[in-house]
């Protein structure tokens, strides 16, 4: 396992069996796959900034313009669905008080899976 800081031991625990139910569930959503991919550089980011990147990703893919409502929806999904779920799975460290998130320490297998998952067919945004 790589030493990429040591956010939580739970994370290591979860990812020592990287393809468990929680991991699959985390990776089942395109938005969550993109979120994880965007955080892979290890930087801590404001949740709003992450939302902007996800909205931009959608907009560039569809060649359309994203409106404020689009980002509000993404923010809602992040705060109420994705981030708690990924935090529980030990994949990110989400600080809901400060409104920031960063990737948890991942083993190479999980990292690779996230990198490859980004090209997977878009099937769901949830």
């Amino acid at each position, binding site marked *: 396992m790589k030493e990429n800081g040591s956010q939580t031991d739970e994370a290591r625990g979860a990812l020592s069996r990287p393809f468990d139910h929680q991991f699959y569930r985390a990776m089942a959503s395109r938005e969550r796959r993109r979120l994880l991919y965007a955080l892979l550089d290890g930087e801590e980011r404001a949740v709003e900034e992450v939302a902007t*990147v996800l909205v*931009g990703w959608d*907009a*560039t893919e569809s060649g359309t*313009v994203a409106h404020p409502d689009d980002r509000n929806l993404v923010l809602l999904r992040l705060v109420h669905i994705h981030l708690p779920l990924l935090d529980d799975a030990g994949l990110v460290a989400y600080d809901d008080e400060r409104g920031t998130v960063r990737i948890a320490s991942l083993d190479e297998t999980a990292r690779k899976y996230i990198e490859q998952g980004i090209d997977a067919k878009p099937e769901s945004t949830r």
Partner: protein
Amino acid sequence: MFDSMLASVQQSTHRFTVYADDDAPSVDDWFANHSVAVDRQPLFPGGPDPFVAVERDGEFAGVLPVAVIERLLEPPVVRPQTTDGLSPAYRALFEVLDETVYTSMARRELLAVSREIEDRAGRLGTGSLHVSFQRLSVFRTQLPAYSKLAETGVAIHVYGEDDWMPPAIPGVVYHPESAGSMGEYWVVAFDGGDDPTQSCALVAREEADGYRGFWTNHEEMVARIRRRLETVDPDQSLTEGDSTLR
């Protein structure tokens, strides 16, 4: 003629953040030329294509893919048969960049905005469209396009220095002027017809290094622009002109 208007339009309160790879071609320069503050955020490889996030008065106002902006600004302005793809982007760019004074605007940018205004007038097929040319002879190249536009039912008023006698076209009124007051301006204004919320206009002045100007969707501002134009040809009431053409 429009100088005081140019001066009164506020400087931008928009904030643009360009998300792009470090080596990606970028639209930063375009924004910089328009006196708009630009931040830059690196994008990770394998992520989204470059895009621009817009804040207005501190509030998130939307995201524009760079490809869409470039498509808007690249002549010739290609319009798809359906408006689903491009129209929202055009509309958003109007909303987002509304009433910002731009410096060093390129001619192609003015053309792109002019086309949007003309298209809107054509889609609605009502109301009046006021267009100025430096000289009336410049209008020659626009005859086919404007003949078509006039067929939609839009009343068209063309202004310009009196150096050519354009052919009569049903629906088009010419306002030749000789005082030289129009020559340096590029003006396109549409009043929205029955729906003033569709009002839109572009005003630009030619300067040594390009154009300085703004565009607007505000019906009040568009009405002001139209009133200024009316002073060019005070002998000919625009209302009369409209009615004789139908």
